[in-house]
């Protein structure tokens, strides 16, 4: 499927921010991921013609980074940190509880397309370990119980927008530091909610 006009417009805006078209590849891939929950081949074709490199060159980048998904994710992508700082702060139990609640093992998506579970390497929140991300919005200082609360809350309320601050408030514990993100409006898809992509504003 071709990209809708609005998405194409956004893509063109992003491309304009870079001296060379191909430098816009990173953010454009997130636009693609916002569309389908993963980077589809159709989107790769679209991006290739937008930035003027071949499809396989786009695919090369898209398949190199683990945050670009090659398969559809559920509505909520749960990334639980398994690296050292979290591990010594009991992340393995957090991991167990999330796995148990969702019934998923690594890189699996449930039949309802609600959750995708993955365990990941350090997400840069060591000071607030153990940490979890929902659609790349970070919650720190979790306990195994809080993690289950988080998951059931997501399942029951199915929020459209995931906002880190809100989840931190509800389910988090000790925070490492203030992330100081001005525009903390959250994200509506498994795409980091940075201003550049601005995927949220149109949706709101």
């Amino acid at each position, binding site marked *: 499927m071709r990209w809708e006009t609005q998405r194409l417009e956004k893509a063109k805006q992003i491309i304009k921010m870079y001296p060379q078209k191909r430098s816009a590849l990173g953010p454009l891939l997130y636009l693609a991921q916002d569309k389908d929950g993963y980077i589809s*081949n159709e989107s790769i074709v679209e991006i290739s013609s937008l930035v003027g*490199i071949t*499809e*396989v*060159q786009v*695919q*090369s980048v898209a398949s190199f980074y683990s945050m670009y998904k090659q398969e559809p994710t559920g509505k909520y992508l749960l990334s639980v940190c398994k690296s050292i700082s979290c591990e010594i702060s009991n992340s393995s139990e957090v991991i167990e509880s999330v796995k148990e609640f969702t019934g998923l093992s690594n890189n699996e998506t449930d039949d309802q397309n609600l959750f995708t579970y993955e365990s990941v390497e350090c997400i840069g929140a060591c000071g607030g370990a153990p940490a979890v991300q929902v659609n790349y919005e970070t919650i720190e200082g979790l306990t195994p119980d809080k993690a289950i609360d988080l998951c059931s809350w997501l399942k029951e309320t199915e929020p459209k927008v995931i906002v880190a601050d809100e989840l931190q408030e509800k389910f988090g514990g000790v925070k490492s530091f203030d992330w100081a993100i001005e525009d903390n409006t959250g994200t509506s898809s498994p795409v980091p909610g940075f201003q550049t992509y601005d995927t949220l504003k149109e949706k709101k």
Partner: protein
Amino acid sequence: MSDKVTFTVDGKQLEGKQGQLLIEACEESGIHIPRFCWHKRLDPVGMCRMCLVEIDTPRGKALVPSCTTQITDELSVETESEVVKKAQEGVLEFLLINHPLDCPICDKAGECPLQDQTMAYGPGESRFIEEKRHFEKPIPISDIVLLDRERCILCARCTRFSEEISGDPLIEFIQRGNKTQVNTFPDEPFKSYFSGNTVQICPVGALTATSYRFKARPWDLKKVSSTCNCCSLGCSVELNVSQNKMLRILGEDNEYTNQGWLSDKGRYNFEYLHSTNRLLSIHSKENENFENINISEANEKITKKIQELGNPDIKFIIGANSTNEEYFVINKFANLLNRNEFLGKDNSNVYFADDHISNGYFGDQYENATFEDLDSSDAIVVWAEDIKDNLPVLYLRIKKAVKNGVKLVIFGHTNTALESLADLYIGSEVISNNFEIQKELSNIKELKNIINGKKVTTIIGKSTPLQQKKSLDTLIDYLQKVSDLKILNCFSKANTFGALQQIDQLKGLNEFCTEYENSKKNIVFTIGANPVNASFFGSQIKDILQEADYVISLDIFKNETTELANLILPTTAFGEKEGTITNMEMRVMKQNKILPDPGSTLSEWEYLVMIAKSLGEDINYENVSEINNELVSQYKTTVNLPTFDNLNKPSNLFGILHEKEINLNTNDVEKNNISLLMVKRLYGDSSTQINSQSISMLGSERFIELNSITLNKYGIQSNVATLTQGSASFFVNIKINNFLPDNLVIAPINRRGFEKLDPTKEFDIKETKNMKELSVN
């Protein structure tokens, strides 16, 4: 500051150039450092770490990759220390972890850098007992190249080639870590004119070619250097033969011409040599049917015919695949028949079967260029037939020059493939659809900025046979006035320049048609030429050959022209004959014989010498080096002549530049209103290609190219259509090319059936509604 650098390797003092890479500087001094990813014609990446050496740094000794380290004064390097050895063993152990070691069934075994370097530098035994990674073996990544990802050692030579050199990056690394692999995008095959080069430079057997798979072991191959004859660039090649069969052609690194690369046409267009369709015996037409006769019968027939016809007019149509020696004899023979007692004329009677030739720019007023000039000039100006399709490796040379900062100006409308490289593309605002310049060139500011007062090399020739020479003259006059100009005459076919050098006065098929007189008795020789197909004058020539009193064709395959002959003499082909050929720069290079003459074929010159003898004429050559000796004695200079002996010397392996006076006598086509632009594509329906199994289908797609405005005018929505002209009608695929001007439609001339199209007549394009019709076709 001097650009010499002195450094020490293994205790020896060496010299190199400032900025040179350590691995290269060592190589030049005879010290070989093992490597996989580094290739002299590619940018270094430091991927494989096989080239690690130990150097002294302010913080002590350190291991560095020599392919990414530049030499500096007083650099001290160890290439064989214990540490280096350990590193090499380690690197090889890593590389072998996932390598399948299926050498016994691998094409590369025996000439495999991984195999060889494991022997020379490897640990000697394996500690690896785990499972190796697995991939489907092998997957086709194009019609001619297969990829075995298990064997791949991820050196990025192939991907760098496709990005840096050929500019069609359709293969890339995908995935990461243990899953990293080379691949194409789904349904986007590695469709490149240059894909075979990746097979040649792959340091393992990961990339293989369909034509060579499982055909031979490298140590059984007989090898000889030669020069490719697919276009007039003069690529140096190595011919690989086993059991008298040509099995492979490799590119040799000739600094002057191909720099190691080949087009896939040059590389894979050889299987025809052993095709069962080859002409292997003499055919004589008796009552509409061809019968086999022997050589003395044939000789008798020709002599009798010439005598019987009294005072026949004898004309020669020659192709581009003969050697200089053959042209030399053809010229002698043609002169002789002109002067002998039956004939009175002293007009030239040799016609060249390529409509693109024009009188060109030769002689004292012009300075002719070599390919080296492309690199050393400030700007390159191209106005010629499609370079990428007709002189593919010249396209690589242009691309390289542009990469190094040379400016590129392209004049439309055939070289749209070069547009993306160009600093200035001059299209329909200046050039009409008839290829006339319709604007004062000095008024084009952008052009002025690029060329005024600069060193300019121009690649110039007719873009289409219908282009008038005076439009080229306008450009040349202008360039000569404002810049320091060197000229490469762009005639693209094989040994065109050899023919120009050897034939006293060469004319075109246009002249053949106008000079042919029906009222006379006529004998026509066609030598390695098929003018009935693929010429603007094809149908006219067909009529002439049908009418002529006797037609003798020398060729390697039956074709549209030999069908009309009374006598067909089978000749030897590439690899079966020895001789010299001359490339676009007038570089004379050697073609070598490595295959025996098949069947009862003879070289063109052998037939002509034989016929001359029986006519009582004295052309007497025992072998081809005799001809070569006589031929070189007619060159202007006397030093370093391109004799066989001389060309076989290592220092001259890559050719000797030699000019000779050139006398071309061609006129423009009068009727030159172009409606359909017929251009030659790299792949087509030539008898050599369709008889080479691996590439036979590559030129079968019938298509037209046009811009979207023109497409809209015809009201076509889909990507297929019907092209009709008179009684001819073809289903064609549509390719949008928005660099073409409005109302100009391109069709490839070398497609089956397309010879029926007349580029000057009206045609129509209609929507094809029924896709089924396409498959019926």
